[in-house]
C-alpha cells in the first residue's frame, strides 16, 4: 500500500472559508425569515386555506311541506328517491361496472356512459349520478349486487309524491329546477343551485312556506376528495304544511265526471269563499316534473292543442253565455225596468235596424216573464232588456257581482275576464259603442268574458244575496310538527253589494225553476234530496249562422253551468265549463250535479248509494227522467230539457 501523504496546508485559503461561512449564515437567515413570514405573518390566510382544503360543505335538501285537503288527506307528500351514483376515480374497471349497471338497471350502456363522462368533469371524487329515480325493484337488485359493484353507491333525496296521481294537478302545480334568473332574484337568495322550486299553482304561490330550508353537512375530505368523516351537520328544516280548503273526494268526483273532456270546474263555499273543488282539464302529471321533466314530455305537453298545462279555472276566459243572464236580470230588476209580473213577447227573434237576433227557440217562447225567461233561457227577453239597459248599466251590475277583475284567489297569473263598457270601447278601439253590441253582451256573448273562478264567485254572491267572499284555497299553515301557525278566516270583500234581496230572490226563483221545473234547461242538475238552483249557458266559439249538424271539435260551443244548493239556504256554489261541450244543460249540468251530490253525501244529507256500481246515479236519474234533446239554435244553442212540452 502506498504511503499516506499528509500535505500540510497553511496557505491562506481559510480566508475563503470565512466568506463561505458568511454565505451559509446569510442563507440560513433567509430561510428563517421566510419561515417567519409564512408561519407568523401570513399564518391566518394559510390557516383559512388549510381549512377550506379540509372541509367540504354539502347541502342537504329539505323536504317540502305536505299539502293536505280540508279533511287531512294528503294531496302532495314526499317520498324518497334513489339515485345510483359512482365516484369515477374509485372505479378501476369502468366498462365492467357500466356493463353490470346496464344489465341490472335495464338502461342502455350508452346512456350510462354519457352521464359518466358528463359528470366526470366536476370536482374529483364527486359522486356522479348515473340513474336517478330508480324503482324499488332496481334498488333491490343494485343492493343485492353491491359486492360486484365496487364504487357504486345509492343516494337518497326527498322528492314530491302525488298519492292521487294527476288529481288537482293545476291547483297543486309542479316543481322545476330553479333557473339562473330565479337564482339571482331576492326571493331565492338563500337557495342552493339546483334546488327545485314551485313553478305553478299552490307550489309556487306558497313556495316560501313549503320549501323549508336546506341543511348542510360539513365533511372532512382528504386530498383526493374522499369523505373521511362528518365534522358538523345542520339538519334541514322541513317546510311548513298547508291544509287546503279543497275536499279530496269532491275533487275526485268532479274529475271523474269530466272524463276526458276539457274544461274547468270550481266549487266554492257560499258562506266563506273556501274553494272545495278546483278542476282544470285536461291535466298533466306533476310526478313527471318531480325529478325534472324530460324535454320530450315537455314538448308533448306544449304541443297539445287542448293545453294540458294551462290552468283553465284560473286563466281560461270564456264568454259566459246565458249564465250572464243572471246579471242582466238583476240589472233590470234593480233599475226598475222589469218586475216579477212584467212580460215580454218572444216570437223567436228580435230585430234592431237591419240585424235580426234570433232566440234559440225559433218558434218563440210567447209571453215571457222574468222567471220563465231564466227557466227557458229566452234570448229575446234579454235582448230587449239589454237594449233598454244599455251596456254601461249592465257593466255596473256585472262588476258589483265581482266580474271583470281578478278574484284574488292567491294563485299567480289569474285572469281578469272582461266586462265591456262604452268607455272601455272608446279607449280600446277608439270607436263608439254600437247598440247592437249590447244585445249580444246581454246574453253573455260578444266582448264579455269570465273565468270559471269568477263565475263560481258570482253565483255564490247571488246565492248568499250580495256578500262577496274572497275565494281562497288555504285554510291553515302548519309547522312540521303539525301545529297551526296560521289560520285563514273568510275574507269578505263586499258585505253587501247594494242589490236588493228581493231582486236576488226573484232571480234565484228563476234559477230554481231552471233545474226543477218543466221547461227548465238545467234539469240534468237536479238532485231529489236537495234543491238545486242553477243556470245553463252555451258560449259561441265561432259564428256559424244557420249551420247545424256535425261540427269539428274545435268549433263546437263551450258548455257552461253555474249552480248553488240548497236553494233555501245555500251552502255551496259550483261553476262548470266544458270546452266544446256543446250544451250547458247536457254536458256541464251533470258534472255540477255530481259535485253537489258528493258534497251532500259527505254532509249526510244524501245517503250514499249502497251498491258500488252506481256511481253516476244522479246523472242517470236525470237522464232517464228528462227525455229528449231540444232543437238547436245556431249561435245560441241551449239544451232543452224534457218535460217542456208538458
Amino acid at each position: 500500500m502506498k504511503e499516506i501523504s499528509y500535505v500540510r496546508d497553511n496557505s491562506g485559503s481559510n480566508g475563503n472559508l470565512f466568506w463561505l461561512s458568511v454565505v451559509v449564515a446569510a442563507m440560513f437567515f433567509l430561510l428563517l425569515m421566510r419561515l417567519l413570514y409564512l408561519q407568523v405573518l401570513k399564518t391566518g390566510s394559510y390557516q383559512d386555506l388549510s381549512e377550506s382544503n379540509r372541509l367540504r360543505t354539502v347541502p342537504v335538501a329539505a323536504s317540502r311541506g305536505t299539502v293536505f285537503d280540508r279533511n287531512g288527506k294528503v294531496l302532495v307528500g314526499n317520498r324518497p328517491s334513489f339515485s345510483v351514483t359512482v365516484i369515477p376515480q374509485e372505479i378501476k374497471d369502468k366498462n365492467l361496472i357500466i356493463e353490470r349497471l346496464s344489465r341490472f338497471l335495464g338502461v342502455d350502456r350508452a346512456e350510462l356512459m354519457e352521464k359518466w363522462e358528463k359528470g366526470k368533469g366536476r370536482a374529483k371524487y364527486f359522486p356522479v349520478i348515473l340513474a336517478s329515480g330508480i324503482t324499488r325493484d332496481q334498488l333491490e337488485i343494485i343492493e343485492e349486487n353491491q359486492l360486484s359493484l365496487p364504487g357504486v353507491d345509492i343516494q337518497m333525496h326527498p322528492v314530491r309524491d302525488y298519492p292521487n296521481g294527476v288529481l288537482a294537478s293545476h291547483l297543486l302545480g309542479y316543481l322545476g329546477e330553479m333557473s339562473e334568473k330565479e337564482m339571482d332574484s331576492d326571493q331565492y337568495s338563500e337557495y342552493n343551485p339546483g334546488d327545485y322550486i314551485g313553478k305553478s299553482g299552490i307550489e309556487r304561490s306558497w313556495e316560501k312556506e313549503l320549501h323549508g330550508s336546506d341543511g348542510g353537512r360539513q365533511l372532512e375530505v382528504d386530498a383526493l376528495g374522499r369523505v373521511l368523516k362528518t365534522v358538523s351537520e345542520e339538519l334541514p328544516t322541513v317546510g311548513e304544511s298547508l291544509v287546503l280548503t279543497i275536499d279530496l273526494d269532491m275533487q275526485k268526483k268532479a274529475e271523474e265526471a269530466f272524463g276526458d273532456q276539457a274544461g274547468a270546474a270550481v266549487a266554492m263555499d257560499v258562506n266563506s269563499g273556501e274553494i272545495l273543488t278546483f278542476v282544470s282539464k285536461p291535466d298533466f302529471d306533476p310526478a313527471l316534473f318531480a325529478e325534472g321533466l324530460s324535454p320530450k314530455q315537455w314538448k308533448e305537453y306544449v304541443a297539445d292543442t287542448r293545453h294540458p298545462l294551462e290552468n283553465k279555472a284560473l286563466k281560461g276566459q270564456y264568454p259566459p253565455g246565458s249564465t250572464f243572464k243572471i246579471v242582466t236580470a238583476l240589472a233590470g230588476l234593480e233599475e226598475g225596468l222589469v218586475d216579477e209580473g212584467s212580460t215580454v213577447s218572444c216570437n223567436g227573434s228580435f230585430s234592431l235596424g237591419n240585424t235580426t237576433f234570433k232566440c234559440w227557440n225559433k218558434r218563440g217562447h210567447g209571453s215571457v216573464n222574468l222567471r220563465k225567461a231564466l227557466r227557458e233561457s229566452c234570448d229575446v227577453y234579454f235582448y230587449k232588456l239589454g237594449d233598454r239597459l244599455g251596456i254601461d248599466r249592465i257593466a255596473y251590475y256585472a262588476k258589483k257581482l265581482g266580474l271583470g277583475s281578478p278574484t284574488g284567489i292567491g294563485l299567480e297569473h289569474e285572469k281578469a275576464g272582461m266586462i265591456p263598457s262604452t268607455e272601455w270601447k272608446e279607449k280600446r278601439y277608439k270607436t263608439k259603442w254600437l247598440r247592437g253590441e249590447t244585445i249580444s253582451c246581454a246574453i253573455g256573448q260578444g266582448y264579455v268574458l269570465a273565468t270559471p273562478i269568477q263565475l263560481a264567485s258570482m253565483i255564490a254572491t247571488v246565492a248568499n244575496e250580495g256578500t262577496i267572499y274572497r275565494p281562497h284555497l288555504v285554510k291553515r299553515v302548519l309547522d312540521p310538527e303539525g301545529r297551526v301557525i296560521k289560520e285563514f278566516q273568510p275574507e269578505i270583500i263586499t258585505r253587501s253589494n247594494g242589490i236588493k234581496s228581493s231582486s236576488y230572490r226573484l232571480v234565484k226563483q228563476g234559477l230554481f225553476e231552471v233545474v226543477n221545473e218543466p221547461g227548465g234547461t238545467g234539469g240534468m242538475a237536479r238532485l231529489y234530496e236537495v234543491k238545486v238552483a242553477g243556470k245553463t249557458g252555451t258560449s259561441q266559439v265561432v259564428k256559424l249562422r244557420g249551420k247545424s249538424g256535425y261540427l269539428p271539435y274545435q268549433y263546437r260551443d263551450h258548455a257552461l253551468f253555474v249552480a248553488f244548493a240548497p236553494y233555501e239556504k245555500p251552502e255551496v256554489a259550483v261553476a262548470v265549463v266544458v270546452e266544446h261541450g256543446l250544451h250547458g244543460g247536457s254536458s256541464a249540468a251533470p258534472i255540477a250535479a255530481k259535485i253537489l251530490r258528493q258534497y251532500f253525501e259527505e254532509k249526510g244529507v244524501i245517503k250514499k248509494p249502497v251498491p258500488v256500481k252506481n256511481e253516476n246515479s244522479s246523472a242517470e236519474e236525470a237522464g232517464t227522467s228528462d227525455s229528449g234533446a231540444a232543437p238547436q239554435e245556431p249561435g245560441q244553442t241551449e239544451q232543452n230539457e224534457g218535460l217542456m212540452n208538458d
Partner: protein
Amino acid sequence: MIDRRLFTHFDWGFLLLVLLIAGIGVVNIASATASYHTTGIPYYAKQIYWVIGGIFLIVTLCSFDYHILEDLSWWAYGVLMFLLVVVLVVGRSSMGATRWLNLGFFSFQPSELMKIVIVMVFARYFTEKAELTGLGFRDLLYPFLIIIGPVLLIMKQPDLGTAMLVFLVASSILMFVGIRLSTLVSIVLGAIPAFFLAWHFHLRDYQKERLLNFLDPERDPLGSGYHIIQSKIAVGSGGFLGKGFMQGTQSQLHFLPEQHTDFAFSVFSEEWGFAGCLVVMVLYFSLIFWGLNVAKKCNDRFGKLLAVGVTAMLFWHIMINIGMVIGIFPVVGVPLPLFSYGGTSMITSMVGAAILLNIQMRRFMF
C-alpha cells in the same frame, strides 16, 4: 490501526447532533406516514434501522484513515460512472425517472454516491495541484471535464436535483479554492444564454413546468403547481406553535405530496410551527458550522478540501429542500439530510458525517 487517541478525539457531541436531527426526523416520519395504509414494518421503524445502520457505518468508516479516500477517489469515480451508465440502461424506473439500481438486497441510487465521489476527486485533484489558487478558465477546464460526465448522465435519468447538487458541491469547492473574479463574472454572464439554450433543447417538459410553476404556482394549481401551493399552506397554517403531533390536516389528509420523503419538513412545519422549525434550523446551522470548523481546523489539505466538500453537500441539500418546501426554490427531488425518509439519503448523509468525524478526530495526527 485503531489508535486509542482516536477515541479521545472522537467528537461525541457532533454524533449526538446528527442523531438528534435523525431522531426528530424519525418522529416526524411516524406522523407523516400515520395515515398510510401499510402492511409490514412501518416507515419510521425502517428509518430507525437506517439510522442504526448509519451509526455502524460511522464507526466503521472512522476506523479507517480518511486518506484512503484519496487513493480510492479515481477508482470510485470510474465505478460510479459505469454504474450511472448501467442505471440508464437497466435501472428500475421510479417516479418517471430512472435512478435506482437494484442490487438484490437493496436498491440504491448511484447518483447519490456520486456527490461524495465528486468531493473526493476534487479534493484529491486540488491537493495534487496545491499551487492552484485564483483559478482561471484554463484551470477550470479539468474540473469541468470531471463533473460534466456525471452531471449529464444524472440529468439524463432525469434527476435535475441531484445534477444540480453535484454542480453546486463542485462549485463550492472551487469557490473555496478560489476563482479569479473576472473569470467568475464571465461564467455568470455566459451562463445566462446557456440557460436559455438548455431550456430550449435539454429540459424535459415536467422540468420546465416545475420551473415555471415555481415562478407562478397558481398557473396550474391542481397540476404541477399543486406541490408548492399545498406545501406553503401546510407550513403557513402551522403558525407559531404548530397544529400538534399527528394533527396536521395537510399531511394527515394527504394534501401534501411525498410527505415522508421530500416534503417531510413541510409536515414538520405544519405540526410544530415556527418554534419547531427554529429548533431544526438551529440544529442544521450547527451541523454546517461544525463542518466548516472541521475544515478550518484541519491542517491537511486533502482533509480540508474534503471537509469543505462534504459540508457543502449537506448544506446545499438543506437549502434546496427547505427552500423548496417553503416556496423559494423550485420543486426538485432533493431530500432533507438525516430527516427525510429513505435509505440512500440516510446512508449518504451518514457517510458525510463519518467523513467529517474522521477528519476531525485525525486532525492531530501530524
